[in-house]
């Protein structure tokens, strides 16, 4: 019989290795003769230099090299621009090592290679650079002004990109409005902070002229192309392997970070393996950040709460460079109308260079920002009109009978944002019920009399997932009967090997234990883009399904020859093909794979083996959606907040593995709560980072994250053969708005209005006391 595996909470096959310490992360790779690298980083937000004196460092016993920009030659050419934007004015990308000018504290200036990391760090202390500091552009709003210090001297302004995305007749919308909300909303700067920092190990084999790179990248195939180009080598001579990687969340896809060029360069130059492991302080200053935007928004509404139009002008902090393109701003802009039928949305962003670390996507890629803006504005419009926050949402939602409903917005990957395959009103009803929303509201007057300030907040999210470009998967049946599945996109803990095995095993009617999955090695599968944007299940999963179906068809063809029975009279069950109604007339998949061995059968022009590869692109993506709800109690004497209840209602289509889906939601929500209440990166006026440790960057722990109640709504996605929608980022997207809404509701007697996240206790006390926000 064929066992159903898609949809089952199959135990993660990765966990035994991960939980017993047998996984192999970058720092677990030890090679004979290996040397250790450390990076000299700029101590200035902006400075020029002409001379790097490494003589004392080189004189230290055990130091093998100090590499500066002058040593790199063409390897120091600017990195590629990954995403175009029609509004680009000054696209600027980084280089592996700063050539005479630094633009943020943490920018790489030199690489030391030594016998140990200890010695390499001793050598860093001995390198002298004749920096001449210059005024820096640090504050986002100030940096956008004419006359601000320039981050890039060959520009006339720090505005890197100015792009409008306008849908509908905005003038009519505002002309017809009974009420217009005007507001400035500000999600602050944060960072993903995966448990494992970045790292690179490189080995050059001079006898084969082959370079092997172990890299914490989310995109090994793509990274291979960039690294080969920078080092002037054939892609065929470069292998990039992403081994077990301890969390990515976007920060590990960049193409490429300086160290991904520098470490292989050093390994080839010295003909010794070289390891570089990023320490946490480096991760705070040398890896990318996220989140900071300032939105000036106007919302036109009728007095009964119909939203007629949104005008939004926002500044997006790009950091010092923009190699990823202003993707976060694009996504924030695309997501603005959320799940609501808003006839007109006009939005313009300015991506602004500042002398701070570069900004690139982190779980949600701008969608948490856009979501915070829209959902918070919904709350404020409701408050101004005397409506309930749930009711105003109900009145504006896209309803199932409206679908497909084209929002007119274009998402990342040039994906049209068309609502379909979900029931937003039902999601809202379920969330309100699970939250006991009415009960909370009913109890508020009596509780407030007793000095208890409890409130409920809700926030919708719609998430663009499963976007272009493509991924590929190859499925090959071995003569042993095992099924070998390979793909280019790697896992950073998502459980891809489990879910891919479920899809392939069900399609080929084999036990999942028979399926061997390999991913993230450019020498095993050299096509693919990477793991990002909640797309692996949609794009990679669909490719796996396609490849497995092709293998099944080939198996039936081969069995047809073997058994001399027409393919339509055959079935595939329990790892074997047999004649319908005659299970004894069977041939196993392993035997078919053996029969397909070219030794036995191949004629010129035919393909060998029982194998197939499939490549999948989802031009319309897949829109996931849901509602977060929180009930909080605010201590009005201290500004401390306790989250009493947290509910997630979501619809990610067919769930390949519900346990893995729940893990994604829990982790995402925890990161969302971090951004709502705890995590904020700060700089002083000179661009010095003030937050470079976990004592100061307050990632919530298991003690701070409440128990999260998850409700699944499974509406099959009509756009891909698996029926799935991505689920990787949805947890993180609406948490800030839900939390902020709950705090506002709790503090309603004080007239508190939230305009920025994270809300920290001083900010909450300031709301209570009506202070100018600190």
């Amino acid at each position: 019989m064929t066992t159903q595996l898609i949809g089952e909470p199959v135990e993660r096959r990765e966990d035994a290795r991960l939980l017993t310490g047998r996984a192999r992360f970058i720092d677990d790779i030890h090679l004979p003769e290996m040397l250790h690298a450390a990076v000299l980083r700029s101590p200035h937000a902006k400075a020029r230099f002409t001379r790097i004196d490494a003589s004392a460092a080189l004189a230290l016993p055990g130091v093998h090299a100090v590499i500066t920009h002058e040593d790199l030659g063409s390897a120091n050419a600017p990195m590629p621009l990954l995403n175009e934007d029609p509004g680009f004015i000054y696209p600027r990308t980084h280089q592996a090592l700063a050539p005479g000018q630094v633009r943020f504290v943490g920018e790489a200036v030199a690489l030391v290679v030594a016998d140990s990391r200890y010695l390499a760090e001793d050598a860093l202390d001995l390198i002298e650079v004749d920096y001449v500091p210059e005024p820096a552009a640090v504050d986002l709003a100030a940096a956008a002004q004419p006359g601000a210090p320039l981050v890039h001297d060959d520009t006339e302004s720090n505005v890197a990109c100015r792009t409008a995305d306008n849908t509908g007749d905005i003038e009519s919308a505002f002309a017809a409005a009974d009420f217009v909300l005007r507001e400035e909303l500000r999600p602050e700067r944060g960072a993903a902070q995966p448990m494992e920092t970045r790292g690179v190990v490189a080995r050059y084999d001079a006898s084969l002229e082959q370079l092997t790179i172990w890299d914490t990248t989310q995109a090994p195939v793509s990274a291979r192309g960039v690294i080969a180009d920078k080092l002037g080598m054939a892609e065929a001579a470069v292998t990039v392997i992403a081994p077990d990687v301890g969390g990515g969340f976007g920060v590990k896809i960049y193409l490429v970070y300086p160290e991904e060029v520098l470490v292989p360069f050093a390994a080839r130059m010295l003909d010794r393996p070289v390891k570089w492991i990023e320490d946490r302080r480096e991760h705070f200053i040398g890896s990318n950040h996220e989140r900071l935007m300032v939105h000036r928004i106007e919302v036109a509404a009728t007095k009964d709460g119909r939203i007629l139009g949104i005008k939004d002008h926002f500044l997006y902090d790009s950091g010092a460079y923009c190699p990823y393109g202003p993707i976060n701003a694009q996504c924030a802009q695309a997501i603005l109308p959320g799940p609501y039928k808003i006839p007109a949305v006009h939005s313009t962003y300015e991506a602004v260079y500042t002398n701070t670390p570069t900004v690139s996507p982190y779980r949600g890629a701008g969608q948490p920002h856009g979501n915070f803006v829209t959902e918070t504005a919904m709350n404020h419009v409701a408050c101004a009109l005397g409506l309930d926050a749930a009711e105003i949402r109900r009145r504006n939602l896209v309803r199932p009978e409206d679908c497909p409903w084209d929002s007119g917005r274009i998402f990342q990957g040039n994906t049209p944002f068309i609502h379909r395959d979900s029931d937003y009103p039902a999601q809202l009803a379920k969330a309100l019920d699970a939250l006991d929303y009415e009960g909370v509201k009913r109890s508020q007057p009596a509780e407030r009399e007793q000095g208890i300030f409890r409130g409920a907040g809700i926030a919708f999210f719609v998430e663009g997932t499963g976007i272009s470009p493509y991924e590929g998967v190859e499925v090959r049946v071995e003569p042993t009967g095992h099924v070998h599945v390979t793909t280019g996109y790697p896992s950073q803990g998502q459980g891809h090997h489990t879910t891919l095995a479920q899809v392939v095993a069900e399609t080929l009617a084999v036990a999942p234990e028979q399926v061997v999955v390999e991913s993230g090695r450019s020498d095993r599968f050299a096509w693919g883009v990477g793991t990002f944007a909640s797309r692996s299940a949609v794009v990679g999963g669909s490719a796996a399904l396609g490849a497995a179906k092709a293998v099944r068809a080939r198996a039936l063809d081969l069995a047809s020859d073997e058994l001399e029975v027409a393919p339509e009279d055959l079935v595939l069950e329990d790892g074997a093909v047999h004649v319908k109604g005659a299970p004894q007339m069977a041939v196993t998949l392993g035997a078919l794979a053996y029969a397909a061995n070219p030794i036995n059968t191949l004629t010129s022009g035919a393909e060998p083996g029982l194998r197939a590869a499939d490549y999948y692109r989802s031009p319309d993506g897949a829109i996931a959606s849901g509602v977060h709800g929180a009930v909080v109690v605010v201590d009005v004497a201290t500004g401390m907040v306790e989250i009493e209840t947290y509910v997630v209602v979501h619809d990610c289509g067919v769930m390949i593995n519900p346990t893995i889906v729940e893990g994604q939601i829990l982790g995402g929500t925890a990161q969302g709560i971090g951004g709502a209440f705890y995590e904020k990166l700060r700089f002083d006026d000179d661009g010095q980072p003030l937050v470079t440790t976990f004592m100061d960057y307050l990632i919530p722990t298991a003690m701070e994250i409440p128990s999260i109640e998850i409700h699944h709504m499974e509406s099959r996605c009509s756009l891909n053969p698996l029926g799935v929608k991505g689920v990787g980022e949805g947890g993180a997207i609406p948490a800030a708005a839900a939390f902020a809404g709950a705090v506002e509701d709790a503090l309603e007697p004080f007239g508190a209005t939230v305009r920025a996240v994270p809300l920290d206790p001083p900010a909450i006390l300031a709301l209570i006391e009506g202070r100018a926000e600190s």
Partner: protein
Amino acid sequence: MKPPPFAYECPTEVADAVALLAAHGADARPLAGGQSLVPLLNFRLARPAVLVDLNRIAALGHVTVENGALRIGAMARQAAVEADPGVARGWPLLTDAISHIAHPQIRNRGTIGGSLAHNDPAAELPAVMLALDAEMTALGPEGTRTVPSGEFFAGTMETALAPDELLTEIRVPELPEGTGWSFREAARRQGDFALVAVAVLLRPSGSSSGIDARVVVTGTGDGPQRMREAEAVLAERGTGGDACEAAGNAAAQASEPADDPHAPAWYRQRLVAALTRRACREAAMRMGR
């Protein structure tokens, strides 16, 4: 984040440790539980030439009650003191405060003496020892001396210890029967250093209110601070009516926090007022039990 080079000494006798400190002077640093010093080394913020590891000195690990007083060896682990039933019976303020220090893993390594000698301005133990009138025993080349806690804490990460002196023992006097106590802390996350913490002891006495109050606040300045105005309010008015609130306000007024990235000064003053008020009420409820 690797430390610069240092020499490592690992004596097994207190006298040897003191001799090493005397020999190397300011170039040496004693290493207790390492929960603060090792990160400082890794950040290269501390660069001692010699580390004198105290972890092999068996004589410094005791936790005993003698003639009613508590004697804690400087190298006693925080977790050991937290779990000690004699401490919980006689000095529940100390037991409760230790549970606010970081996380169990850190308390397993961290020592009572290490925290006191390090004197982080937001640490719990200095505040508690000040509230409890503890006495510190220091051993130096000249021999042993005893320093009252009121003189021991000398400013941010400063104590009365000379570079060649070692804190060897903390002696905590017996509390009178019926003493009320409370420890209140506000931190962003479980286990973080306190934004503000308040230790309150209410001893029965012959004052007009029948209370001898001790109020100590930490997190607002350069170390634990006795709030004498708040103590005076309680000694005079007891804990009834709005006395606790008045004590909280007096403490807030006497505190002089500065703005820092975690909180503006005005916010810490609000915390001092709220936590002191709550701690006084809680301690009052425990009085006489």
